[in-house]
């Protein structure tokens, strides 16, 4: 912005009307004059940084006293006798030849390069070097002007930063390795809570799927299918409260208790009642009450009719779905079944159904029905939606139903934040080959 001539410039020293032109200013002027005595030559020689000028081949033509002092060298030993690179460590020389010199040639200047200069006594001084190429009138490069800054303090600081960074990188690597190991261990443990393989049941196809919400946490869902005697089989699927190691211990206790109880008395209500006693006895007085929900049942195939009679009972678990060959799907109600392990004696609700070829029984945990859907992930998927989805797969064998449901779970994305177990048992229709999958 330009001033107009309307007002006198307050900083004009010749303005007789300037009220600031006092004795103090005269003292300042004297100090300023003294500074002017600091000749350019004096400033060059004793500047707080090193200066040197070299020919284009690096031969030192001029060097200031500051830099000579740092190097502990005599001017006569340096000027016309040494090249700039002779002042550097060997590593610095290599860096100069591979980075510094080419860049300087290409750009005509370079700044802030970290190098080390060697003193006569062998000591090294970390420095920051900047250079510019001075050119003649015809553009021909004439010489290189270089400034050298003492970077001892700064380099020490940078080394601290580097050390810190390396330590952080090492710690991060260690943490990642630990996490990977922990995840491996958890995966093995999780696997141990589920059956390796399901037994093959004549005329019946089984299919399962287990979705783990977080690889860092042991899930709390479980299922199993196992033989009772030469003819009948038992199955269960459930959900223990909580997650993590304590939930895993509860799952383990639940699985083995149900297996043992079923061998003793396969009646579904009896098996759940035994489980209830065991869990209540174990946890009710522990100060850490724990419980589970479960469906337990038996399968009784009739080779004569090709039908399968299912007796089951539920303790607080969502009702199973019966999917008929004709595409109708309905819940098999088990109202009033109580949570397993909370009360000293709990009530469990039995139910029975018969499956014909093409029919499938679906058991699931509430991770599926409580998946959050909708654009803002606020509504739950729900029982009715599941029933409708299942009905759309009527007549398909269990593995096809599980495959469709797995796709449904995937489609929930981050709306699926709980573990989910699926177990489908059915009699394939005559036109579907049978297979057992998990």
């Amino acid at each position, binding site marked *: 912005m330009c001033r107009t001539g309307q007002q006198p410039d307050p900083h004009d020293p010749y303005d007789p009307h300037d009220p600031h032109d006092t004795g103090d200013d005269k003292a300042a002027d004297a100090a300023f004059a003294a500074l002017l005595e600091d000749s350019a030559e004096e400033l060059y020689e004793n500047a707080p940084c090193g200066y040197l000028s070299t020919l284009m081949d690096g031969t030192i033509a001029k060097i200031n006293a500051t830099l000579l002092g740092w190097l502990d060298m005599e001017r006569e030993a340096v000027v016309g006798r040494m090249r700039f690179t002779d002042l550097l460590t060997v590593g610095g020389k290599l*860096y100069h030849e591979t980075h510094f*010199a080419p*860049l300087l040639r290409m750009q005509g200047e370079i700044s802030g390069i970290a190098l080390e200069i060697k003193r006569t006594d062998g000591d090294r001084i970390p420095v920051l070097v900047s250079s510019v190429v001075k050119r003649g009138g015809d553009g021909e490069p004439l010489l290189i002007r270089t400034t050298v800054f003492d970077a001892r303090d700064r380099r020490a600081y940078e080394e601290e930063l*580097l050390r810190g960074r390396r330590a952080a990188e090492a710690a991060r690597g260690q943490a990642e390795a630990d996490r990977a190991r922990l995840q491996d261990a958890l995966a093995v443990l999780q696997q141990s809570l589920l059956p390796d393989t399901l037994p093959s049941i004549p005329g019946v196809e089984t299919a399962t799927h287990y979705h783990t919400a977080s690889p860092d946490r042991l899930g709390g869902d479980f299922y199993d299918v196992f033989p009772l005697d030469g003819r009948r089989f038992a199955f269960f699927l459930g959900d223990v409260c909580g997650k993590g190691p304590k939930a895993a211990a509860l799952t383990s206790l639940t699985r083995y208790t149900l297996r043992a109880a079923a061998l003793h008395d396969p009646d579904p209500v009896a098996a759940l009642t035994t489980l209830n006693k065991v869990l209540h006895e174990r946890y009710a007085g522990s100060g850490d009450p724990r419980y589970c929900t479960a469906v337990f049942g038996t399968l009784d195939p009739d080779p004569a009719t090709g039908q399968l009679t299912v007796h089951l009972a539920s303790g607080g678990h969502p009702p199973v779905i019966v999917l008929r060959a004709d595409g109708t799907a309905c819940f098999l109600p088990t109202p009033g079944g109580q949570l397993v392990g909370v009360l000293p004696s709990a009530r469990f609700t039995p139910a029975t159904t018969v499956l014909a070829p093409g029919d499938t029984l679906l058991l699931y945990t509430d991770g599926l029905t409580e998946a959050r859907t909708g654009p803002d992930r606020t509504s739950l998927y729900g029982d009715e939606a599941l029933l409708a989805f299942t009905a759309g797969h009527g007549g398909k064998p269990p593995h096809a139903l599980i495959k469709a449901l797995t796709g449904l779970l995937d489609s929930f994305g981050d709306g699926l934040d709980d573990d989910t177990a699926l177990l489908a048992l059915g009699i394939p229709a005559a036109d579907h080959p049978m297979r057992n999958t998990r």
Partner: protein
Amino acid sequence: MDIARRNNVAVTGNPHGRTVVLAHGFGCDQNMWRLTVPALAEDYRVVLFDYVGSGRSDLSAFSENRYGSLHGYARDVVEVCEALDLRDAVFVGHSVSAMIGVLAAEAAPERIGALVMVAPSPRYIDDDGYRGGFSAQDIDELLASLESNYLGWSAVMAPVIMGNPDRPDLGEELKNSFCATDPDMARVFARTTFLSDSRADLKSVRVPTLVLECSEDAIAPREVGAFVHRAVPGSTLVTLRATGHCPHLSAPEATNEAIRGFLAGLR
């Protein structure tokens, strides 16, 4: 894979001339040849590229395993030659690239018909009866020098330099970008370069070869130039009056004259 993009390949010059491939050494990138290209462009087709890990190459293609050996860099050369389907090209390699060219010519003899080795050294570290000019400690010092300029590499700037092969103007403005290299990749290239020993490969060279050395070169001293000349059968040695390791930048006229003279003498 798009090799032209991976290695930031640029083709210029006379499309009807014999192809000359210019290969940069450790440190900077193909910009090192900016004073050489104009001297060749009229008569020759000129190919420029950056090794993976340098310049504006695709850094995601870098692997410590592959580029831990000069053979990995030689594969870059062969793959560039294959991508352009070059036959009988002249390979001009600066510094460590001279040795990379020897390995590439051995691997793909039909593609490389002559070599120009600019300031070559087959081994940098002194050995029994051989003087490369450096000790193992010196090389450690170089690695430390790279490390102390670590902070000069900006993780913010890198994607701008490296990630815009379609927009070279973006990187062009950035100072020092020709020699800005990811520190981890620079360390690998430095180790591979300065710890290599390619002396035994020299005698396998079967193509006309020009050895260009500088009169004063801190990295490749004259006795190393003489060693290379003796070891490469039938090679020609030219000593340039030049100081430093980059005669194509510090003495471009003399360097270009020597290269053009050699090219003119090829059949």
